[in-house]
């Protein structure tokens, strides 16, 4: 009797094991992590911060590669062509994946992308050179009011979080400024440091990487960032601006449900690591935890907000 029962239990265990083997064994080899931008930007840096923790926790290499072009569109348009076994994953960014397909045919639709985790965001911030005459946000607003259109902002790309923040803030403050799109935060920072533009619509991260060479006038967060205790939030100054670029990880849509969930748990585990968190915060990032189960809800809310802002800004019709 006992033996028979054990045998049945054993069979059941084997059957269950075989059934979930794909997910249980995952990852069985190195995981390709495609960043749809060039190296050196926020997407790349955070992927490389995850890299050692992934290896240490799950025993496999996380191999970062780049597929730049079209502000990410090139990579996302081909995401679903990759094999769906969880060994190919891709960085995804908001507002990009909402605004690009809404604007024109870029080869993918927002709902084509299967996001398993949103792991952080970079709040928008107005950054000036350390020797800039703008000491406070009010200095900049005053100058922009006196010289409409003459204050120039460098920023990362067109129709990006930076661009939207510029348009929204112009409206809120009743000013007119000029936004100059650069191919990423790196070139945007170069333009700022070289004095090519009056200021930059960057992220808390660009400010962190610039160190003493730059000053943050305001950050678009609910509360101040621990790395910039002296930089006020726009909210404190009376402008209801909380915005930024959100970054997550997506898989090809042929990836089975159990692997999506497992990957989501894995990224969540890295996010919970105190050492990882510290490195992220030191770099100017703000942590975020939106696992696979909560993605639909999160995306609905974000899509609505971004589409609305873009229409208000005249980027979308």
């Amino acid at each position, binding site marked *: 009797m006992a033996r028979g029962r054990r045998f049945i239990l054993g069979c059941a265990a084997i059957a269950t094991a075989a059934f979930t083997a794909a997910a249980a064994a995952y990852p069985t080899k190195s995981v*390709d992590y495609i960043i749809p931008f*060039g*190296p*050196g930007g926020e997407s*790349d*840096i955070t992927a*490389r*911060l995850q*890299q*050692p923790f992934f*290896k240490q926790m799950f025993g496999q*290499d*996380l*191999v*970062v*590669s*780049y*597929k730049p*072009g*079209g*502000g990410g*569109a*090139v990579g996302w*348009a*081909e995401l679903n062509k990759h094999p769906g076994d969880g060994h190919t994953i891709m960085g995804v960014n908001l507002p990009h994946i909402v605004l*690009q397909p809404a*604007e*024109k*045919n*870029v*080869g993918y639709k927002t709902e084509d992308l299967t996001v398993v985790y949103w792991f952080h965001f970079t709040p928008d911030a107005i950054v000036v050179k350390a020797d800039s005459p703008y000491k406070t946000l009010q200095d900049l607003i005053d100058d922009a009011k006196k010289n409409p*259109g*003459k*204050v*120039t902002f460098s920023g990362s*790309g*067109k*129709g990006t979080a930076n661009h939207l923040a510029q348009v929204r803030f112009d409206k809120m403050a009743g000013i007119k400024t*000029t936004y*100059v*799109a*650069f*191919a990423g935060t*790196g*070139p945007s*920072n*170069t*333009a700022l*440091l*070289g*004095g*090519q*533009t009056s200021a930059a619509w960057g992220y808390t991260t660009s400010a962190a*990487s*610039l*160190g*003493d*060479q730059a000053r943050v006038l305001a950050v678009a967060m609910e509360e101040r960032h621990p790395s910039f205790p002296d930089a006020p939030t726009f909210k404190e100054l009376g402008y209801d601006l909380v915005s930024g670029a959100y970054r997550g990880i997506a898989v090809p849509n042929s990836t089975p449900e159990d692997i999506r969930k497992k990957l989501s748990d894995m990224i969540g585990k890295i996010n919970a690591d105190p050492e990882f968190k510290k490195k992220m915060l030191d*770099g100017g990032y703000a942590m975020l935890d939106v696992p696979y189960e909560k993605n639909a809800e999160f995306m609905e809310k974000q899509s609505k907000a971004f589409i609305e802002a873009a229409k208000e800004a005249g980027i979308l019709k």
Partner: protein
Amino acid sequence: MSGFEALFAALTPLNLLLALAGVISGTVIGAIPGLTATMAVAVLVPLTFGMPPAPALILMGAIYTGAIYGGAYSAILLNTPGTPSAIATTLDGLVGAIALLTLAPPLSRVALAFGPVEYFWLAIFGLSLISAISEGSLLKGLAGGALGLLISCIGVAEVSADVRLTFGSQTLVAGINVVAALIGLFCIPVLIDLVATPGQHLQVVAEPRGFRLGEAVRVIMQRKFNLLRSSIIGTIVGILPGAGGSVAGIVAYSEARRAARPGEHYGKGEPGGVIASESANNATVGGGFIPTLVLGIPGTPPDAVILGALLVQGMRTGPTLFTDYALIVYTFIWSLLIATILMLPAGLLLGRYAYKSIITLPKALLVPSVAFMTIIGTYAIRNSISDVVIMIVLGVIGWILGRFGFAAAPIVLGLILGPIAEQGFVQAWTIGSAQQDLVGMFFGRPISIAIIAFTVFSLLSPLLMRRWKLKPEVAHVE
């Protein structure tokens, strides 16, 4: 002050062994057509994460140095043994590394003075080099350059996010990858020609025995100005964010070609050409790290990979770099110097034996294996089979155009410089309009004026040279 403690810390036998291994693997990977320094670095960098900082940094620097040297290798080997290039590489690797060590902070400010409009003019200057490259038929050269510019427009534009010239094809949205185009335009026509003509592909020179060190040293000493000029060009181009070894190589090569004495045959294995492009290519290593380290702005694509790895090691770029992170930074810089010195014996040995095995290879074996490597290399750029198709199509187009006297180099220049010129122009126009001073923006800035002057000189030089060459002859007749 200059971090000698870091040097002594770096000089352990294990670290030296790692440096040697890095140089050799970097050279070998870089020597395979299409496998670029960026890729060699990106593939090998994860290996260093588990290591303590010093060996990790040393391995990275060695891989990088080797990859840059190896990258120019396959091209040179087909016409010239590797000895002069190995020596030139070592000499100006030293120039670049010393520049990095001593000039990092002041030079980084020079790069910052380059705004969008300077990039625009620099790209135009680069395009004006077509008149130098395509001596013989300027019209065909310009047509090739225009074709390159047109090809560079395909896909989603980087700054304006417009979709252009894709003709509804999803594949073309990704644009034409420059490396894939380079492989196609430069390698495929050579391969087709090799197959199309009977006989040995390389004439076996009677005496390619030994390292020919004496000859190589003599060749280099005769061209010390070329070497110095090219190293300086390389260092400066390397400092400019975004421009890399290929741009530096082309600029230095055409400058050397232009300054050539009669009797020097560029394009036919002339050592001066090898020295120019190799020196410049290698000097970008040191130059490129200056903005990368001081400002966190990568000077060349592989620098961007290295920068990511340095950030993982806990380093933060910025003005405090040389104080707070002195040990990491100086260890890395010294590692570049050590790798550069190791480059000489490694390059000599690899050059000697790789050259030997290539000239003794029968054509039936060489062509398929090179063709195979170009396909693997193109595929590996971004794991895309469409890149391979594009590479082959462009290669065939390049071969056909070559039959009609259109060279590949102007097409490639247009392709590389097109996006730089476009972005610079759009940004400069936007900023200039905002300041209501478009003329001042484009023609009123000192560096721009200097670049414009160089451009005009470059465009007129074929005419000036002809007149200059004619005069002595006239005098002779009289």
